[in-house]
């Protein structure tokens, strides 16, 4: 018996992730333009709609509505569309394509999640700026959005990937994605102090809450950056947990 053949070098995790990211971003550019428009329009529409309802003296509510609408753009793309994407990949056995390549599920999940999260940036910036102007909020600390978007994007994309990979059928993944987005909408835009107790518990459990709260804090004239950092820390923790769970769900989905 002669010696076994030399194994080809596997790509490093970073290079695998960046290859998946680049491929997915190009996919998104080609196919998701109209959806980005819809996501932005939906959030700007909510801002306009609530402008007539929100009491001008209630700064807290205004901040909440603007921050919630901005995070909703992220939820639409990173949670909803990514749940659909992974539901489709699972349903059509397309995960085999990645499973037969020398890359870890984590690279695939992270690379895909990162590309979807990137794709939320223009819509989220437009929504935050339009919201700030419409509700007369100070935009001097909007740089916080540069931290909120990747962290909200990562945690919601992790959740979207997880839901898509757990769904037994693509239609169920779509339903999960839509429900998740609705949860982000209601829990993010309605001020916490006006919610019943059960909804407050639910609010504390979804990662988008912490992204919304951090962004709402930054829309104050003089934000408490400690509060912002704590909220973003929770968001980062949620991102790690959901992305790890999504990677495990990927393995399980392939081995069916």
């Amino acid at each position, binding site marked *: *018996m*002669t*010696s*076994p*053949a030399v*194994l*080809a*070098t*596997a*790509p490093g995790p970073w*290079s*695998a992730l960046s*290859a*998946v990211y*680049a*491929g997915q971003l*190009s*996919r998104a550019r*080609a*196919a998701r333009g109209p959806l980005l428009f819809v996501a932005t329009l939906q959030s700007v529409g909510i801002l306009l709609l609530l402008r007539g309802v929100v009491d001008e003296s209630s700064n807290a509510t205004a901040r909440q509505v603007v921050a919630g609408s901005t995070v909703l753009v992220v939820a639409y793309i990173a949670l909803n569309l990514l749940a659909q994407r992974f539901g*489709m*990949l699972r349903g*059509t*056995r*397309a*995960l*085999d*394509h*990645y*499973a*037969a*390549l*020398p*890359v870890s599920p984590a690279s695939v999940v992270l690379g895909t999640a990162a590309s979807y999260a990137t794709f939320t940036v223009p819509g989220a910036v437009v929504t935050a700026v339009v919201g700030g102007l419409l509700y007369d909020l100070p935009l001097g600390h909007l740089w916080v959005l540069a931290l909120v978007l990747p962290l909200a994007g990562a945690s919601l994309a992790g959740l979207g990937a997880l839901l898509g990979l757990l769904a037994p059928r693509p239609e169920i993944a779509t339903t999960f994605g839509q429900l998740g987005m609705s949860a982000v909408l209601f829990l993010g835009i309605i001020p916490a102090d006006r919610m019943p107790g059960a909804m407050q518990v639910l609010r504390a459990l979804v990662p988008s809450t912490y992204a919304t709260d951090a962004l709402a804090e930054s829309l104050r004239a003089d934000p408490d950056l400690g509060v912002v950092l704590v909220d973003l820390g929770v968001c980062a923790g949620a991102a790690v947990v959901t992305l790890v769970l999504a990677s495990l769900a990927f393995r399980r989905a*392939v*081995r069916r």
Partner: protein
Amino acid sequence: MGGGTRGTGTVVPSPVSTGGPLAVDVHAVSRTHRGRRGSADVLANDAVTLSVEPGAVFGLLGPNGAGKTTLVRQLVGVLRPDAGTIRLLGHDVTARPADAARLVAYLAQEEPALSELPVGLAIETTGRLRGQRRAQARAARDRLLDELALEALADTPMSRLSGGQRRLAQVATALVGDRPILVLDEPTAGLDAAARRAVWDALGRRRTTTTVVLVTHNVLEAETVLDRVAVLDRGRVIACDSPGRLKALVSDEVRLDLVWRDEPPHDDPTVLQLRARATVTGRRWCIRLPAAEARDALGRLTAGPTLDALDDFTLATASLEDVYLALGGRDDDLERA
């Protein structure tokens, strides 16, 4: 169309074995799909044993549900066997499934993961995910686009291509990264003759370095391109040899195909005799019988007035399909085109 005799195509001689380990060595592999929601378990692979020499083009032939795709998903390390071992070029991939991805390129029946990517980027991304550096992957992409005449489509998303063009582009993604083993699940499905030729030429150019394991249910393709073929039925290997030797098992029989213009003449004694032994599909009759008998029958049919009732007829030597049927396989969905 007139009648004719079908022969086998040319087979490129396989390169001399290097005396190294077998490219693929499958030993007693079994895999059961667990039934869901009360449905029964399905034994998809039942103690499958087969081996493939380096440089060979090896085929897995059988109808849908024979267990071909389950077997290849185990070969590429995606699925683990319940029992048995799989070694690829000396590496035990049942013990270390991750090694398979470093030896094999896999082309699944469909590749929806790449569907919205432009052709060039799909090839480049797959190359990078097989461990190539960006510049290497781009150079490989350009070579493959040129080799498979896909340059004009480089920027077109896969989903906008015709079925045949898309399959050809998917074959390109399997070739990038120069894996020593290619596992291809129906690589030429939906391709026209020219594209099929392009795929087989591309594989032919890699024969000294590459072993090909090919899933097909196209018997004609199996006869012309494979060095060896394993015939699968209901999860078991029912035969494994070169197409020529397998056909020798049933060499005394030929197949006579008759296509009638309208109703066959029922007063002709030869027609009546043949009808008793024919598999009838609409106006098409397929009869398997010893060569001498077939010649006589065809002689009588074509000499008399019955010829006018015939739209087409073919007398063909035994095919792998006949072998498959003679071995007890079911004539469900083998393709003959």
